[in-house]
């Protein structure tokens, strides 16, 4: 089994309460940070750890912290991105509902490092039952003296609040999140000038980090940045939470040491436990729905024939021609019976639904991709539709304010790149495709 730094205490009954959390070493990282490190030394520890953003982009966390404008004289804000909505991803939810104090402790340490006195957890509104869990944990932390005025007699003060979203994938993009937190529609902002580190929440310097990233600050302080960096492989340091779903025997959230072979993750009983019902593996989306899908031969091994590892670098090896991305760690597994076209159509529908509508290429392009995929999947497609999809995807990519355009375009381009014959089959076997769609519905009605 791999090393666990975030989930090692997750199954302890009552770990969501501050007493049990503290009995198992909770808030000792905070005490250590406040008693032995200056704020800048905390940042140095995070830089030394090699931690990279766990929300999907993989940007070096410590470096991101140093971008904050410390000279403007304006208040600095810390915002936790808990708007987890990337299809295939459900790891932040697991931390939030099971061990809320881990996030809170990580946020207090981070706020201390960057000099923020107000912080918000922006959580997707659908997690309705988690709001009371977080509110209770925040009240406990405040009563214990970890929040509010003069924390641990350090002279440092912090107010931390939970803020609900209301159903919008786009609010996981950090500038859209800040718009939403200001009470507006979640339309992403132009960068430049609106880099959150300089012009973020209320036009003040703001740090936005993912739940898992902020939680990882706790073991980094406990171990020391250099020790943390010894875990993992190369520039993929530490552990990562992987949300495993699809056609596997044991779906769920797993903490892996970065560097684990993909094949072991899929087939070992410590993780996914192999493909459901004894079927064969067909393809995997390794990092949430936005990253390129890879067929079985390319997900288990790189094009060069080396074993593919669960690291930022190994998954990206081969670029988008033969590689993919670690992304959010949303690991979706397809067995041999899965229809790539049908699944891509559901993802295209998702991106169309979630486009904020601000940029024409994304607003219109996601709609066209959904429509064209719908007709292919329902036996009404033309052979030219396949290249049409590639063309539309190209015309979205790189032409929008935020990365939702790429997130919508990449899955389409990758599915056609690796599974073109399956798209062609949908055109050459129209009646069969229509039959399958009708049969799935009528079979269901008979079983009712």
């Amino acid at each position: 089994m791999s090393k666990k730094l975030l989930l090692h205490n997750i199954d302890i009954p009552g770990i969501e309460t501050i007493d049990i959390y503290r009995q198992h070493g909770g808030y000792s990282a905070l005490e250590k940070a406040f008693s032995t490190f200056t704020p800048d030394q905390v940042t140095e520890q995070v830089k030394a750890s090699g931690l990279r953003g766990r929300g999907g982009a993989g940007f070096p966390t410590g470096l991101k912290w140093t971008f904050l404008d410390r000279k403007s004289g304006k208040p600095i804000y810390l915002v936790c991105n808990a708007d987890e909505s990337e299809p295939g991803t459900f790891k932040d939810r697991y931390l939030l509902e099971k061990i809320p104090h881990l996030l809170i402790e990580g946020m207090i340490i981070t706020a201390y490092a960057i000099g923020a006195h107000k912080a918000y957890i922006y959580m997707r509104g659908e997690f309705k039952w988690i709001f009371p869990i977080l509110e209770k944990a925040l009240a406990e932390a405040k009563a214990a003296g970890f929040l509010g005025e003069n924390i641990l007699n350090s002279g440092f003060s912090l107010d931390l609040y939970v803020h609900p979203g209301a159903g919008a994938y786009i609010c996981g993009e950090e500038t859209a999140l800040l718009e939403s937190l200001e009470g507006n529609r979640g339309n992403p902002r132009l960068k430049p000038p609106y880099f959150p580190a300089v012009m973020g929440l209320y036009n003040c310097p703001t740090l936005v980090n993912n739940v898992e990233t902020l939680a990882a600050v706790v073991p980094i302080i406990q171990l020391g940045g250099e020790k943390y960096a010894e875990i993992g492989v190369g520039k993929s340091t530490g552990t990562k939470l992987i949300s495993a779903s699809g056609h596997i025997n044991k779906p769920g959230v797993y903490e892996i040491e970065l560097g684990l072979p993909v094949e072991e993750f899929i087939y070992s009983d410590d993780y996914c436990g192999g493909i459901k019902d004894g079927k064969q593996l067909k393809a995997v989306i390794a990092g949430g729905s936005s990253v390129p899908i890879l067929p079985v031969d390319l997900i288990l091994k790189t094009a060069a024939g080396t074993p593919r590892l669960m690291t930022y670098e190994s998954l990206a090896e081969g670029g988008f021609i033969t590689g993919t991305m670690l992304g959010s760690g949303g690991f979706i597994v397809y067995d041999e019976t899965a229809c790539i076209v049908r699944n891509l159509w559901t993802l295209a529908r998702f991106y169309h639904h979630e486009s904020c509508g601000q940029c024409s290429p994304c607003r219109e392009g996601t709609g066209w991709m959904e429509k064209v995929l719908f007709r292919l999947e329902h036996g009404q497609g033309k052979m030219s539709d396949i290249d049409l999809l590639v063309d539309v995807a190209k015309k979205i990519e790189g032409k929008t304010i935020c990365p939702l355009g790429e997130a919508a375009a990449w899955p389409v381009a990758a599915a056609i790149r690796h599974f073109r014959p399956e798209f062609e089959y949908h055109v050459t076997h129209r009646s069969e495709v229509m039959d399958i769609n009708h049969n799935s519905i009528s079979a269901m009605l008979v079983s009712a």
Partner: protein
Amino acid sequence: MNWTHETRSKSMNNHIHISTSTSAKSEFSPATMALVNEIIIRYPEGKHKSALIPLLHLAQNEFGGWLSPESMDYVASILKIAPVEVYEVATFYSMFNLQPVGKYMLEVCQTGPCGLNGADKIINYLKHKLNIDIGETSADGLFTLKTVECLASCGTAPMMQVGEHYYENLTPSSIDHLLKQWSNK
């Protein structure tokens, strides 16, 4: 199935219509009002518009599960912002219902991983059992059927959200059990 028909209940924002119906009640209880004041002071002075989405959730909860124009105007008056600032936000986010809904709103996830694990069958089963289409409310006013996009429950697919709860690993028999329970309440 006719492929030219849109299958989604709600497409882009140009499909959203604010209701002309009115809601029965449109003022917060004293307890909710206390909470409203507590929420507003979480944000810096002058930045009270940040409280808009939290207040719209409270309004939807307290005023029958949806936001009527009166409810939205009322929230605008509390935050001292123009009503249109509330409408433009309420129409953007999928959790805000701008039409009356049933007592139980069944929100079934239909995105990728749920799709791989039989979301279509679950949606069709619910349509058949409730005798309504997506976006409709049953004649007795008990159930509204809605399809939604990824709710971060991919490892426990297929699933649906009803009120504060996620119902996961759904099967026809677990749905039968739930519907029976809600019908008898």
